[in-house]
């Protein structure tokens, strides 16, 4: 009895010794803290430091356009009817009156012409998707060229790569949903690609389409994948991506006061919150304005899909352009034997497409293997200080662009009055040659910039002031750089290439060197050897030049 009493009394008294909250807001926060532990969470994060650099906005654009896509996508699902059932159109758009079309196409027409604001949301959705993929690509370039993918961020690089890959595919599916003449052509292309898979291609095609092309299943199935499966996976990856960004903290450029062990910037609350939060509205506002003034995917101009009709300059969205390029430039090789056909003309591009992307996905692992570097990196590389990496990135972009030319060969031919065959032949050659040329030029360019940095550190900057020396010679006065600039220009590391282990060990026994080790040494020489970096000035060299007399 008394025990029970004391227990009740104990419960009625507050267990914590915390002071009374000063106001309502604090009371609410206290309530939440008792259940969710928000104070401990906020302690580390409320004033978390974010470095400031314009290029960090690229990732933000990705995040914000993704949010815009989800918001507008939910709206569109309220009106869109993902069905291939056929109807005869009687709507506001007179030119298509009385035409047979799928319900998917008809409902897209209704969204565009009868739902107030529907066209706007459709346009925002499509524009945001285009900007999303573009921003992911540019964001990825930023991370690549600055070496931000290095330890501890390799996993996040993979997450980002998967987001790009999924984003491209979801874009393709979304583009296919309205079932207009252009998107149906894209789906037909996909059917041909699936059919080209050896051994199981026809089975895959029949299971995917629920029978022969086009059947009645593909749009509803794409719809589910487009709005549920892929976005679901992407949200998961995105959250993981952001958690890791938060956990690793941002990278930063070398500069006064910035080291591998700190991060310099402004606190989350209030500056970063206002800037990043405000930036969401800027992005949303600009995309809304774009949707108001620039029409994208006018499906009413294409008409509904019919497998025996096609419009000229059939084009995918730009981010699929490089796969389109691959398919257009590939010679039509077919191997026929033992009653079977291997369609190399389609199958090879189908395999090269993910390969072009995957090479860039595994790059962080290649580089760390070559350098043997197991340390964490938080200070960014200036692209010029990693000439081989920069060259490889530029080569990859040139490959991407040349394939984009291949994918748009018809447009280029008509706009520039060129022969479409010549463009295709050019792209076939350029596919192999251009990346090599780009690599060589970029690397040399980087080395030139390194030389200029070296010159600047040792001799200072040009002032533009010409002085005449007593013996008549004219010289330009160079001004010493201030220490923060000197530090910035010399802060980067210059790893030495790996050397092969000695042929014989200390006991004179021949040591075996594996092929792998040899390759690694060779690659390492390519990355960090004499031809790949300009030795940066040492303090001694600097002293010698600046303390000497007779110098200008």
């Amino acid at each position, binding site marked *: 009895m008394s025990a029970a009493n004391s227990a009740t009394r104990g419960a009625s008294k507050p267990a914590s010794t915390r002071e009374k909250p000063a106001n309502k807001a604090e009371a609410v926060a206290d309530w939440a803290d008792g259940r969710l532990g928000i104070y401990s969470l906020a302690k580390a994060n409320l004033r978390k430091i974010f470095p400031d650099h314009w290029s960090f906005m690229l990732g933000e654009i990705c995040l914000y356009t993704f949010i815009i896509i989800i918001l507008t996508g939910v709206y569109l699902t309220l009106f869109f009817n993902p069905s291939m059932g056929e109807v005869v159109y009687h709507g506001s758009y007179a030119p298509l009156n009385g035409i047979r079309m799928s319900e998917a196409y008809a409902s897209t027409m209704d969204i565009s012409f009868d739902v107030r604001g529907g066209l706007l949301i459709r346009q925002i959705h499509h524009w945001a998707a285009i900007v999303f993929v573009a921003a992911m690509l540019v964001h990825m370039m930023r991370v690549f060229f600055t070496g931000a993918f290095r330890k501890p961020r390799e996993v996040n690089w993979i997450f980002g790569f998967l987001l790009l890959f999924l984003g491209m595919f979801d874009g393709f599916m979304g583009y296919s949903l309205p079932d207009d003449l252009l998107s149906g052509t894209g789906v037909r292309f996909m059917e041909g690609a699936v*059919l080209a898979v050896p051994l199981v291609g026809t089975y895959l095609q029949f299971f995917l389409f629920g029978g022969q092309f086009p059947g009645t299943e593909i749009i509803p199935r794409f719809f589910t994948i487009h709005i549920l499966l892929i976005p679901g996976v992407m949200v998961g990856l995105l959250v993981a991506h952001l958690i890791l960004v938060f956990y690793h903290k941002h990278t930063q450029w070398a500069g006064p006061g910035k080291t591998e062990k700190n991060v310099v910037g402004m606190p989350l609350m209030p500056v970063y919150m206002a800037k990043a939060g405000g930036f969401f509205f800027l992005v949303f506002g600009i995309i809304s304005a774009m949707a108001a003034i620039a029409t994208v995917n006018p499906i009413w101009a294409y008409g509904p899909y019919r497998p025996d009709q096609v419009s000229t300059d059939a084009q995918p969205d730009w981010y699929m352009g490089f796969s389109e390029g691959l*398919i257009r430039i590939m010679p039509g090789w077919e191997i026929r034997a033992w009653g079977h056909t291997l369609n190399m003309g389609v199958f090879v591009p189908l395999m090269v497409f993910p390969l072009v992307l995957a090479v860039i996905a595994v790059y962080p692992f290649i580089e760390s293997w070559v350098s043997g570097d197991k340390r964490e990196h938080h200070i960014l590389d200036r692209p010029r200080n990693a000439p081989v990496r920069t060259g490889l990135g530029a080569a990859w972009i040139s490959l991407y662009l040349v394939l984009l030319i291949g994918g748009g060969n018809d447009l280029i031919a008509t706009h520039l009055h060129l022969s479409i065959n010549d463009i*295709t032949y050019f792209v076939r050659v350029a596919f192999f040659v251009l990346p090599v040329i780009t690599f060589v030029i970029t690397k040399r360019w980087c080395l030139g910039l390194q030389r200029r940095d070296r010159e600047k550190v040792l001799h200072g900057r040009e002032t533009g002031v010409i002085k005449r020396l007593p013996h008549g010679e004219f010289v330009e006065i160079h001004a010493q750089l201030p220490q923060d600039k000197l530090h910035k220009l010399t*802060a980067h590391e210059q790893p030495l290439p790996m050397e092969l282990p000695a042929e014989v060990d200390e006991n004179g026994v021949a040591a075996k060197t594996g092929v792998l080790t040899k390759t690694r040494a060779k690659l390492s020489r390519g990355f960090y050897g004499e031809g790949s970096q300009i030795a940066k000035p040492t303090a001694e060299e600097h002293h010698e030049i600046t303390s000497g007399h007779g110098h200008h």
Partner: protein
Amino acid sequence: MSEDKLPESHGSAGQHEVATHGDPFADPGLPAHEPRRTDIDERAAKRAERQVSLMFVVSMLATVGFIASYVAIDADKIVYIFPLGHVSALNFALGLTLGVALFCIGAGAVHWARTLMSDHELPAERHPIEADDEVRADVIEQFKTGAAESGFGRRKMIRNTLIGSMALVPLSGVVLLRDLGPLPEDKLQHTGWDLATPEHPLPLVNMNTNKPMKAEDIVVGSLTFAKPEGLEEDDEFFQQQIAKDALMLVRIAPENIKDKDSAELGFEGILAYSKICTHVGCPISLYEQQTHHALCPCHQSTFDLADGARVIFGPAGHPLPQLKITTNEEGFLVATGDFAEPVGPSFWERS
């Protein structure tokens, strides 16, 4: 492996922390904070405050404008706006007002952050991601204890059967996908033209006029599209059928036909080819009269219709299949059988 090649260990360059006296490249440390105009001039600060508020007010007005446009403008109203041309008035008004409403919130917030919030840069320490050795040893110890308690390593039979069952169970998911579609069987080998036999030929119907065609209707140099008689647009499987049956009729002066076999399959220079490209299945629609070349607009495969529809450019792997045609007693063009080989993109089972 080549750890010793990294700058830190061979000591040529790691200037980050070493601020040796007299080192011209040493890190001078964080620069002193420089106040902005708004930090020292109260009038500038007030002006910035008004600018921020103005942007938020513009946003409010734009939202009101958005709602007003939604109510007032008809969805089908088209207006001419230079340089955009004819555009939907509602789309234009809604998009711009929404754009301004959102943009001004963002611009206001960013301006506020840049002019009035503190711009003191602060350093925060990083901590290595890796745990220290003590934690590592502790976790590994705990894991080993757990593993030992489970007996996973000791009881090999359980372990192996578990691995086996886990490896097999996903198969159920794969098997369940079987009913997504029917089996291909030989469906891709045939088209709707296989209803035609020499005894019961199937008339060719003009795609546009929906009428049977006489040989004399087709002039030399023309390209006509046709479908089998009986296939109507409102048929249940029209889309699926037309994706294979679509026919392209071309008439070439007999002396210009290079391929003799091809000429024999036709009727007095009228040749009937599948309209579906053998690359990935786009309909071929561009024809050049003088050269007898047909081009697929999707990937530019080019076929020489005078030479058995041989591929002369582009990614297609084999010629367009040709349909044998003749005329019946009333003079209408008819087919007497199916294509000799499957139409459309090639596939593994295609011989």
